[in-house]
């Protein structure tokens, strides 16, 4: 049963490794977006500290958005997607494998780098673990929701912009709870509620998004 799951996971990780420049570009994008903010709003430490959670989260969200088109585009063009859809194993499984591989190669690096970047914005050091944790819970939700959008816009003209329009409104709750968690921790009110809600959101997205994504992929080959 998990044969297909692991085959897809292994292949996508191997492909990410062979095309590792793409992964690094995503990470560099994340870093640069964060570094732009001090130039825009001024380098006053108090102000930077205040906007740090939001800035880091918006940058992570954009980095995820910009790499989402990679998720299915190549497989769609070269026919691999058709073969996967003809698999005798449930589509939900290999969709999950693809999203997991995507998260491991784009979400996880962001999670690991974010605490370092937070220091540039002078974020409270006690809030750094919360930042990493909120991103670790939140970015998989972004990947799962984004996968639905990526599947729907496969092969559509203007797909990239359309993808942003489709899924950015859906990202808002994740942004609210993710950035909210860091802010709550930094201001000393505790982030437990935010993190629990993010965890709940992740569970819901894990249950529903692969179904919607598989249905969208079936439509895309019609």
């Amino acid at each position: 049963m998990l044969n297909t799951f692991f085959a897809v996971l292994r292949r996508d990780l191997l492909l990410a490794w062979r095309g590792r420049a793409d992964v690094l570009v995503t990470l560099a994008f994340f870093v640069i977006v964060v570094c732009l903010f001090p130039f825009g709003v001024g380098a006053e430490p108090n102000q930077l500290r205040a906007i740090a959670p939001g800035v880091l989260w918006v940058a992570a969200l954009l980095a995820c958005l910009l790499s989402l088109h990679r998720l299915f585009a190549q497989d769609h063009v070269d026919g691999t997607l058709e073969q996967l859809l003809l698999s005798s194993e449930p589509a939900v499984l290999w969709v999950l494998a693809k999203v997991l591989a995507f998260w491991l190669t784009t979400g996880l690096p962001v999670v690991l780098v974010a605490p370092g970047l937070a220091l540039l914005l002078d974020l409270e050091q006690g809030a750094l673990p919360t930042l990493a944790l909120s991103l670790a819970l939140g970015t998989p939700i972004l990947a799962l929701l984004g996968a639905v959008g990526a599947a729907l816009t496969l092969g559509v003209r203007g797909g990239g912009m359309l993808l942003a329009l489709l899924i950015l409104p859906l990202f808002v709750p994740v942004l609210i709870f993710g950035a909210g968690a860091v802010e709550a921790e930094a201001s000393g009110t505790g982030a437990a509620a935010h993190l629990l809600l993010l965890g709940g959101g992740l569970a819901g997205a894990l249950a529903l998004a692969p179904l919607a994504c598989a249905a969208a992929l079936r439509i895309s080959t019609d």
Partner: protein
Amino acid sequence: MNSSQRGFRIFRFAAPQVFYPLAGRLAPWFAAAAVALTLVGLWLGFVVAPTDATQGEVYRVIFIHVPAAWMSMFIYLVMAFWSAVGLVMNTRLSFVMSQALAPTGAIFCFVALWTGALWGKPTWGAYWVWDARLTSQLLLLFLYFGFIALTRAIEDPRRADRAGAIIALVGAVNVPIIYFSVKWWNTLHQGASVSLTKAPSMATTMLAGMLVMAFAAWAYTLAVTLWRVRPMILERERHTEWVGEVLEREGGRK
């Protein structure tokens, strides 16, 4: 097409050739109802209803704002409903309905935002505050835009139908989540703001005016949607016999 091809009629479609003329007959009635109800509603709202004790005349914008906001949310739900029906039952008319509803929903959404801003300036002193209701309304407008853009961007009508249905359902699942998250965010950041719909001690005439306007909006939606559905049905069914007959009857327009 000759009669030997008449055997080809297995369109799993809730009889478009029945619905097409029906929509044409019903639409004018709903349009007339919309006009009449709007006149009554505006008369109630702007002439009969008393001036509000705290807000003065400004409050009268709610006779447009509140029905528009209600309708914009209601239409999204109806869209999601038809999308689900379409995906489950494979009836093409359902997809057409949800796509015909979307522009109207977006317009009501925009009207609600616009009137909200006009009301906000004298009341809050700013055209826009990040109030939970206004913000959710804005995100709903984006969801409408996404749906419309996606269904317009996909060339193949069948694929557009199904893709649109999926995003409408995904959106419908997310609307309550968005609403509550925004509300939560709002209370954390700003504290309670003056709520638009909780006009203190609302007079009966005010409520009546709002309800009449809501029905007017509902009738308008039906009329416009039915009119919009008709050409969409013809476009999708243009390779069938009955569409050819309809086009001939209606003056041979291509």
